[in-house]
């Protein structure tokens, strides 16, 4: 199944069209300018830790707490505090630099990947779309066991890539 005709309520993950319609996908121009927070939270659920975790006040949920989060890209410093704070593991930070895309995403499986490791990059459907390289793994106590992994991969896959393939025996 390709990502293009899938949908959140039948296939489990949002399609790129659904995300685009919800306005949560940054454009390539934005991604080339600066790292962009992508909050793939398109369903009204009562939840706002993204808002309270942001030291810049760049993420707003407001009242009622079922509002979808709104990002102010001018305030966001891409510090990444929201990535492990989101209970839904729905936040990534992406950027483009020449031929390379970079993603920082939440990770809750053991063993943790290691910096320098070559990995399969997956899309929202769990399909491998390209190879990539882990460049950093951070898991300080304040993340409360949600590690944040940074990986690089070919720029043309920036919209599709969401995570890496889990190691499995």
């Amino acid at each position: 199944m390709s990502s293009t005709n899938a949908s959140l309520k039948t296939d489990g993950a949002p399609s790129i069209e659904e995300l685009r319609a919800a306005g949560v996908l940054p454009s390539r121009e934005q991604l080339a300018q600066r790292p962009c927070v992508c909050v793939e939270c398109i369903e009204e659920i009562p939840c706002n830790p993204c808002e309270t975790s942001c030291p810049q006040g760049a993420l707003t949920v407001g009242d009622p707490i079922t509002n979808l989060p709104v990002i102010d890209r001018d305030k966001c410093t891409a510090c990444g505090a929201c990535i492990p704070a989101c209970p839904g593991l729905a936040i990534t930070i992406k950027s483009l630099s020449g031929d390379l895309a970079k993603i920082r995403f939440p990770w809750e499986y053991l063993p943790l990947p290691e910096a320098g490791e070559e990995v399969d990059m997956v899309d929202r459907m769990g399909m491998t779309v390209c190879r990539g390289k882990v460049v950093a793994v951070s898991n300080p106590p304040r993340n409360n066991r949600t590690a944040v992994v940074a990986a690089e991969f070919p720029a043309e896959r920036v919209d599709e890539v969401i995570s890496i393939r889990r190691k499995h025996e």
Partner: protein
Amino acid sequence: MGVDSKPAVVVGAGPAGLCAAIELKRAGAPVVLMDENGKPGGQLFKQIHKFFGSREHSAGTRGFEIGRRLLADSLELGIDVRLDTEVVGIEPGLGVWAVERRSRSYTLEAGCVILATGASENGLAFPGWTLPGVMTAGCAQTLVNVHRVLPGRRVLIVGSGNVGVIVGYQLLQAGAEVAAIIEGAPALGGYGVHTAKVRRAGVPFYCGTTILRAEGEEGVERAVIAKVDRGFKPIAGTEETLEVDTICIAVGLTPALDLAYLAGCKPIFVPELGGNMPLHDGYMRSSVEGVYVVGDTAGVEEASTAMEEGRLAGIHAAYALGFLGEAAMRERTEATWGRLDSLRQGVFGQKRFAAKARILAEGKVRA
């Protein structure tokens, strides 16, 4: 306002019961908290994921950490927690009949009783459902997160509500493979953020699909699934066989009502919240004087709402027993309702909000 020396008895030390007991004890009321299990916390210690909500609902905190916090509070307050104590009857006049360690029984005269007995998982019967390897999702979660035992290598999950999807994620975290999550309805039930994290790990979802049978010699070796029509009848020719050794059933929960019925609480049928449950009002009072119902017993929702309902009952019971003034009771009740209402919003919460509103409206009329 006379101070009643009989204690409030809270039955069930899960999130709702713990919160009720904590509110009572904080107000200075004598409380006895009973639970049939050897450890308190109910299902909280199996919840290793971060909770939703806002800061005041402990959002971003993992369920077991909320459990630890509630336990620490109850210990600090010196609440009389009686474990391995099964409540088997509520006698008229609020005599709580308890069996301790399956060896000694006694009756405790209670000033009021708060039933926080939770819910039980629904079963699903299909050919092969008695094979070893078929279990409820909660069972798999208990095996993995409490006993650290992987129930199988390759799992099929039947039911796409939050329970099925979260347990699927936790099985992946524990090292199992999830072959699929199937759903009889045309759309998935759980939160999109939950399904998305499982999907990106490579787990396929099949909507409009049911399990036909489990096959195997000594245990589950295969599951046969099929598409269903609008009347949920399997469509011939759509059968598919999945190689799995474990089948987890996650098709909803039913409130545990045994004690509520014994106490004489009037029921109401609310399918959205799990079937029959005791009628109750906004203070969580049942139709029986002095008996409160909270948490999944009062309609299946989630731990966050259960905790708030527990607080509502605890606050009102403290007032009814003479340990809290009316103004303080009203103020705390209102604050608690504010938090509760905020959890019952949005596409998922509205249905529960409407269902609860129906119970409260009926509760007023029939009380």
